[in-house]
């Protein structure tokens, strides 16, 4: 059956807002790295964005429903790639996350696995035949997400593993989880907490402790939190001179703490503006979910919404001191190829769904 797909249906409004955020990101990266050895990072970021845009267009050409048919293979491939990281992965900074590609680039499978997970969860819930979840559905859904999550956790990469959770949560919520089920699971999780605490690595424990009490360890893990708050706070309402960023008191300003760097320079007004942009993007995405032609489409788009919201919550939360320090980047703004590419491919999926909303 041929389907008529027109680029008029492309969500130009969405792309405009997304590119606005990206542009702000590029400018901020440039400003934050101008005096450091990372100077020129903003150029690389532009290349990533360009590549991402191309990827987005390409992905939107595919028929997402056909993709979903093949999702079983893709899921196997995802597990396979995570397994090859566990076996062949290069250790860097104490974690095995990357595989070295011929050509010298590093490939981080945990990012594209996220993409596949969104599709897998969407397909699972789309194919469900009940309005409400049974326990076996619940557990199966948990396993679909849980297995890759545990594999990533073993790398060890707690931050990225946690980003898989919102996909599951969103799927479960929209898929019809019952209040009783949710409460029971929360109770179990709560009692398992102390055990999980012991399993945490020392630096992860440090991060949580310093999150609670940053002053206790001024020069160690608490350092980043304090510096971030100082940077953000000194921005005032309209922005400041960005001394904390430029004098390198703010660590990794071009990646994890880019929002802090931006807030320092553009103050409350600027920061709130960027938050508004993100909010508009999320609302637009949700609208696309509501106009999706089928359940699967809705789940796909909402999966993307879940991941995006989670990233923003954790990253900006960390920057203002509400959340412990994790290595989670701010999508579209933080410098980093895998994050940018993932976002654009995910947006490609959203485009995909939107463009076919009149087709059946």
């Amino acid at each position, binding site marked *: 059956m041929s389907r008529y797909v027109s680029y008029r249906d492309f969500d130009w409004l969405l792309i405009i807002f997304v590119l606005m955020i990206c542009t702000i990101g590029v400018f901020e990266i440039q400003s934050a790295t101008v005096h450091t050895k990372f100077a020129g990072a903003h150029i690389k970021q532009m290349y990533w964005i360009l590549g991402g845009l191309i990827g987005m267009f390409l992905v939107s050409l595919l028929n997402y429903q056909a993709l979903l048919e093949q999702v079983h293979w893709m899921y196997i491939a995802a597990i396979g790639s995570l397994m090859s990281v566990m076996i062949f992965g290069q250790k860097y900074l104490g974690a095995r996350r990357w595989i070295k590609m011929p050509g010298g680039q590093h490939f981080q499978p945990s990012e594209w696995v996220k993409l596949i997970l969104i599709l897998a969860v969407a397909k699972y819930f*789309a194919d469900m*035949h009940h309005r409400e979840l049974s326990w076996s559905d619940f557990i199966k859904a948990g396993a679909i997400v849980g297995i890759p999550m545990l594999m990533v956790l073993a790398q060890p990469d707690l931050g990225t593993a946690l980003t898989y959770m919102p996909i599951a949560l969103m799927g479960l919520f929209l898929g019809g989880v019952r209040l009783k089920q949710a409460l029971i699971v929360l109770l179990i999780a709560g009692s398992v907490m102390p055990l999980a605490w012991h399993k945490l690595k020392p630096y992860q424990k440090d991060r949580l402790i310093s999150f609670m009490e940053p002053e206790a360890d001024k020069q160690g893990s608490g350092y980043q939190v304090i510096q971030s708050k100082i940077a953000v706070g*000194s921005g005032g309402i309209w922005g400041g001179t960005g001394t904390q960023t430029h004098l*390198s008191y703010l660590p990794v300003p071009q990646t994890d703490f880019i929002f802090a760097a931006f807030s320092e320079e553009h103050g409350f007004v600027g920061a709130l503006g960027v938050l508004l942009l993100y909010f508009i993007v*999320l609302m637009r995405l949700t609208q696309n979910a509501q106009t999706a032609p089928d359940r699967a489409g809705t789940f796909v788009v909402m999966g993307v919404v879940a991941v995006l919201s989670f990233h923003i919550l954790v990253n900006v939360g960390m920057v203002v001191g509400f959340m412990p320090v994790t290595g989670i980047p701010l999508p579209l703004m933080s410098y980093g190829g895998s994050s940018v590419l993932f976002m654009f491919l995910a947006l490609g999926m959203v485009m995909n769904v939107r463009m076919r909303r009149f087709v059946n």
Partner: protein
Amino acid sequence: MFGRDEKVSSIRLTAVQYIILIIFMILAYGLWRLQVMQSDFYAQLAEKNRIRNVPILAPRGKILDRQGRVIVDNYPSFSALLLRDSTRDLNADAEIIAQGLHLEPKEVRDRIRKFTSMPQYQPIFLKDDITPDELAFIEAHKNELPELDTIMAHRRLYPRNGFMAHLVGYVGEVTETMLNQPQFEFYNPGDVVGVSGVEKQYNQILMGQNGSRRALVDSRGKEMGRLDETPAVPGKQLKLTLDIDLQIAAEEVMEGKNGAVLAMNPRNGEILAMVSRPTFDPNDFAVRVSRDEWNKLVNDPDKPLLNKAIQAQLAPGSTFKILMSVAGWQENIAQTLNVHCSGGATFYGRRFGCWVKGGHGPVDFTKAIYQSCDVFFYTLAEKLGIDRIAKYATALGLGQKTGIDLPNEVSGVMPSEEWKIRNFKQKWFAGETISVGIGQGAIATTPVQLMRAISAISMDGRMVVPHVVNPTELPSGVVDVQRYTEVKTIPIDSTGYTTITDAMARVLLPEGTAPSAHIPGIDIAGKTGSAQIVSLALRAKHENDDNFAQNGWFVGFTPRRNPEIIVCVLFEGGEHGKLAARLATQVIKAYVDKQNRQPTKMAKDAGKVDVGALWATPDEDGKANNGIGAGHFVVEASEKKPPLAAAAPGLQ
């Protein structure tokens, strides 16, 4: 039927939207709290909370001689820094800064401009080696110009006039190419490392580890308090096997000449002196060397930067006859060989001349050595053939590096049939063997190689590894001690050993080739060599051109068996081996003299000593020496150390 097209519950979708809204409002509240409510508090923290990191440079280890006398030391030198981590307008202050530091204001501004792409917490080096008044200027203006600071660096002080320059080497800033190599993984740009000689070879030991001092500064750059300090770990000092006294003698002997001198203890391989000429002054490199000066050194045809002791590959000339002798004896040919030398001989249709035009007359094995008869050794070479010669020469270390603990040693060339095929894809012609017999032709050795080979022969086949540092003096685990103390044994027939060494002893007697080098009272055995670098015919045409003059070689040791010291001299352009011999025996004499100097016996802790004395005095009439005076004294015998040998020039 609940199917795929059944929409997701719109209630739940709306719920998600509201959850997202709530999240964003919480985040906005977080921003509000920091940026609006507590803005002043954080702005203040931003002002106060600055940490400045200043490196504390580690001094490099001293280099000492075998008796612990200092050869290379450091001197403290101050550099002026410009700190850029404050909010001050540096360009405005450039005038005053330039005045105080005796620079041009334009220079200062240029430097500031050049550094804009570097991180702001990295200071700019304005001036090295500042004078005390410039130092005072900076200290006095700490309030008005808080961006100025000083850092103490240690500069290397080398002996002047190039004394021991090649052996000791010099230091320089680590280059980008070096940083990319795995062994320099832990080094940072700006680190000073050894670039040549001992400084390079033992850099790991000599180089210390920089510390750092952290201080709290305010936004104007004024220091508010000290945070902590990691002290620098100074480099460890290095004790060489070299003897400064012998080194002085060797350097004096080569004054105004080109070439190399080496002195070694044949029993353990410890190098006692090493000279290469011409030389250069490494102190010039300690501050930045100008491009012109560098080019001058690199392009000088006499190659002052080359350590000729280990890097000059030249034909050994007649000194090679000693190795030939060992080969000939072990193969049972030389001991019974007798030739009649008439000034030359013909081999394979070509005439090969002897250096004595009229010929030596009848020559046996011993006479061939002390008279250095070419015809004998041509004959011996023909009988042995190149591969047998190569076998013994290679066993004695020719054509290979000695493994001395200095960088960039070269291996020289010991030809053989296999060597010719491998390198030239041609067969070895028997005629080429003849010249090899007298140490000419395709053969090329370094002075250290030649010295080691003959040292092995002098020690009845016991071949050591030459080294300039005693491995037992180093901290354990740094070097492979086995590499330094490894001894190879070359089998030499005992009668051959005594015959050869006795013949070598006659070289310095009236019947030998270097009688003028003889030192009364010292039993020196050796061999002279005069190596051509161009053909004799060409040489005759350019008789007065120094570029074509022959190299004089001499290797000698004392005593003739189980010697204590061996000296090798390469006298470039010296023409005759006997001139090299005279230089070498001077060095040997210096060694023997030093050995003979007994330390004076001093009274130890005698406390008070009774001394009685009688002396002549003038008598009452004034006539000298007619009277006698006498006295009884009590003297405190104090400890007085025996005077040390003369210090190296350049050490004050």
